[in-house]
């Protein structure tokens, strides 16, 4: 059987007298799930190495002898460390096992404070659940319990209650195996053993929120969620995170129509089950008093509260008189539907093509440079990965976790080039710390070292970039037979961004890896805006030209959707001038941003938790969000307002539901055809990349840039 040779070998074992076939080496705790059973666990976590610390998973194990009898092992075995094997006989529910479980729980509870009523974990606590199902119903322990500090702040997000800890080691292992920052470790031994940071410094991690979720008791709790609700007070709906371009899946827990906490939701293709702290703790703006909830129109120096009809009236007059001298810019939190309807409004009603979603300094025309070819999950199996540019752990934290996993699990060689110290350095095969501004030179040198031609002289590059020759050669050696590139579009913010990205593209072509070239989006729906082509066509103006035209007074009207140019653009002077000068400025946002002061009309938009729609993450995965809480004030989803305006100006029937907008998108953009709403349940849908011709090498100046000391 040739096919079977590739498959993992399987073994046959008996669990509770049921014979099943499982892959060799699968842990018993996983095997029992195949027949619908469950072994109680504390320390075991399917994404981390088993350690057998808590003994909750004890099962009775024996082996079939050649004569057909079964010889049981004298002692119970830990199901979470025991791999399945042929002839194995496992019993998960014998009298002995039940007694052992009771014993283990009794031991764990000796030192547990049992302050469940005030514990934030109460109600969703594995220790409570296991005790109810498998534990003793009374206690025999009458002595005084261990007393330790309560509510010790490990960091501004995580609170540690040492009394409640059952020393399962999940948190410690998470920081070692998953996040890689090794912030937590056990101190002391025996009953006094406690997880803590080294010398009790702050628990500094980008992923600290996850330990709150994986701690099987209430020892690690969220400082923000502390005492805000009990699990049964909460309502929970699936959502996605918009804090970066990864599009992590989350659970949105709310109470009395306001967000209480965010938890990770499993999506194997995106975030597995993790979230970063930005996503978990950074969504409080939803409840902020700065939310924009009413329509405002300008009256002299003041913005006065108004209504949609008045605003629409003013907007249509202003934009009609502006003719094609109007423009629209969007930020990263607008949904596919919003972006598409805004594009329709501009192209169909206003006859303008001055549309852009990009905020970087360089805005290359070539679509090829913006390619993304590798999916997040694929990174796990890449043997060589080249992480170039800014700190990936900050820009794409969840992608960073995948790349780290590729190294941790599959020994991938990760070459990290970053101008500053970054988390990825800790596992880098080679780490290239170049001087800011010398990106192109470094890439030129790697190019020369890998191919023996082109690029720049290595010795010279070494002195310019500050990276040792040896390191450049080592990196090039690893990369020359192919690599996957992980770089982000923030590189285009460099003065010579176009050249740097061109150099990256040339390097991938030279190393036969052009199908693994990835220049990732940095904000939630940047990729969506790109796929919907919210960009100037031939005669249209791009972001920079739009701002310049506004500043010179040539552009008459500007529409800002979900963006604050003052924080997005590198050139604040130009932005301020543009916003001051342009005659009519529409600001449509879910929150009051700084540019509100310049607005002629201020339109409230729904935040992601209040509307229906889809977002496209960095790997072009289209994911659905559903309205969770009611829109605030008179805010409405942006796409709805564009539909209404189109109706007013052109008499087009407006779409009533977001899925109708998606159908319109699919009708005008082929690749969205798989992303209609019926297909979006579950993991979402990855839409195909643009059909592009074989990428061509581009002309690149491999020179360094002066970097003013105040910009990185």
């Amino acid at each position, binding site marked *: 059987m040739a096919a079977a040779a590739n498959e993992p070998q399987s073994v046959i074992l008996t669990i509770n007298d049921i014979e099943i076939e499982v892959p060799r080496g699968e842990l018993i705790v996983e095997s029992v799930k195949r027949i619908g059973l469950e072994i109680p666990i504390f320390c075991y976590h399917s994404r981390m190495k088993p350690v057998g610390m808590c003994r909750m998973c004890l099962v009775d194990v024996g082996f079939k002898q050649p004569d057909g009898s079964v010889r049981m092992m004298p002692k119970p075995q830990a199901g979470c460390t025991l791999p399945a094997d042929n002839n194995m006989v496992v019993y998960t529910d014998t009298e002995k096992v039940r007694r052992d479980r009771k014993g283990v729980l009794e031991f764990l509870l000796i030192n547990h404070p049992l302050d469940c*009523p*005030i514990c934030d974990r109460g109600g969703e606590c594995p220790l409570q659940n296991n005790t109810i199902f498998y534990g003793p119903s009374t206690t025999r322990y009458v002595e005084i319990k261990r007393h330790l500090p309560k509510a010790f702040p490990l960091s501004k997000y995580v609170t540690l209650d040492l009394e409640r800890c059952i020393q399962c080691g999940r948190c410690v292992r998470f920081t070692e195996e998953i996040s890689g920052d090794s912030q937590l470790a056990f101190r002391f031994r025996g009953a006094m053993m406690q997880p803590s940071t080294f010398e009790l410094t702050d628990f500094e991690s980008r992923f600290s929120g996850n330990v709150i979720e994986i701690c099987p008791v209430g020892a690690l709790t969220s400082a923000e969620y*502390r005492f805000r609700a009990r699990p049964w007070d909460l309502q929970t709906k699936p959502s996605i995170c918009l804090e970066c371009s990864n599009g992590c899946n989350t659970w949105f827990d709310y109470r009395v129509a306001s967000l209480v906490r965010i938890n990770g939701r499993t999506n194997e293709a995106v975030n597995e089950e993790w979230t970063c702290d930005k996503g978990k703790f950074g969504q409080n703006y939803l409840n902020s008093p700065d939310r924009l909830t009413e329509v405002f129109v300008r009256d002299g120096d003041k913005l006065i509260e108004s209504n949609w009809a008045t605003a629409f009236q003013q907007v249509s007059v202003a934009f009609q008189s502006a003719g094609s001298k109007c423009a629209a810019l969007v930020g990263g939190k607008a949904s596919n539907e919003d972006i598409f309807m805004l594009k329709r409004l501009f192209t169909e009603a206003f006859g303008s093509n001055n549309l852009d979603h990009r905020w970087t300094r360089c805005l290359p025309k070539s679509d090829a440079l913006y390619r993304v070819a590798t999916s997040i999950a694929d990174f796990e199996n890449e043997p060589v990965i080249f992480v170039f540019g800014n700190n990936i752990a900050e820009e794409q934290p969840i992608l960073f976790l995948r790349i780290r996993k590729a190294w941790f699990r599959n020994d991938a060689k990760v070459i990290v080039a970053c101008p500053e110290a970054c988390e990825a350095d800790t596992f880098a095969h080679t780490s290239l710390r170049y001087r800011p501004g010398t990106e192109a030179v470094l890439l030129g040198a790697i190019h020369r070292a890998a191919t023996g031609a082109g690029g720049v002289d290595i010795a010279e590059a070494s002195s310019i970039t500050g990276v040792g020759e040896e390191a450049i050669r080592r990196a090039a050696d690893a990369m020359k037979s192919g690599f996957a590139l992980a770089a982000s579009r923030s590189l285009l913010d460099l003065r010579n961004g176009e050249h740097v990205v061109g150099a990256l593209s040339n390097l991938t072509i030279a190393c036969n890896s052009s199908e693994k070239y990835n220049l990732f989006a940095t904000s939630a729906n940047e990729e969506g805006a790109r796929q919907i082509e919210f960009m100037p066509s031939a005669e249209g103006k791009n972001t920079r030209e739009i701002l310049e035209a506004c500043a010179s007074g040539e552009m008459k009207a500007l529409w800002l959707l979900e963006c604050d140019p003052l924080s997005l653009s590198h050139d604040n002077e130009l932005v301020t001038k543009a916003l001051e000068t342009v005659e009519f400025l529409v600001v449509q946002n879910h929150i009051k941003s700084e540019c509100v002061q310049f607005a002629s009309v201020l339109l409230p938009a729904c935040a992601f938790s209040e509307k229906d729609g889809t977002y496209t993450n960095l790997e072009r995965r289209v994911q659905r969000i559903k309205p969770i809480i009611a829109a605030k004030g008179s805010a409405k989803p942006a796409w709805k307002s564009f539909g209404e305006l189109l109706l007013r100006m052109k008499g087009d029937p407006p779409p009533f539901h977001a899925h109708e907008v998606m159908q319109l998108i699919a009708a005008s953009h082929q690749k969205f055809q798989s992303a209609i709403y019926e297909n979006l349940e579950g993991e979402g849908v990855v839409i195909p990349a643009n059909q592009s011709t074989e990428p061509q090498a581009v002309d690149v100046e491999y020179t360094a840039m002066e970097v003013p000391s105040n910009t990185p």
Partner: protein
Amino acid sequence: MITEVGKDVVLPILKGFLLTGKRLFRDKSTVMYPEQKRESYPRTRWRHVLARYENGLEKCIGCSLCAGACPARCIYVEAAENTNEERYSPGERYAMRYEINMLRCIFCGFCQEACPTGAIVLRSDFELADYQREDFVYTKEMLLEPMPVQSER
């Protein structure tokens, strides 16, 4: 004919009067409410009270277990953290807001049963009528027992 009328009509009437007459001299089982109130049974379940300890601290720790147990979903608890300067209850947690919607309450006493500290108790005050719907949402201030009078030594 006459005998029949006497037997079927007059006799029962007389019997009825006789019974009433006899009862006139017994103790009355009705009371002159509201001037007079009947003593209630010790386990009567009427208006809730949030109890205090003898030292004046609130017993309620804001755990929401009562809200979870309530079949009518009429309790709302919002907890907050005690500080040493501002202490409402012993321990870390207290109820910052505690509301019961008396219109929805079915006086089942599950809340009392669920409460780990004996804070919420149903006592015997049954005069709960009011004019406005809003007034039936009893707040923490209305439910809390008055501060115990410090006994003189």
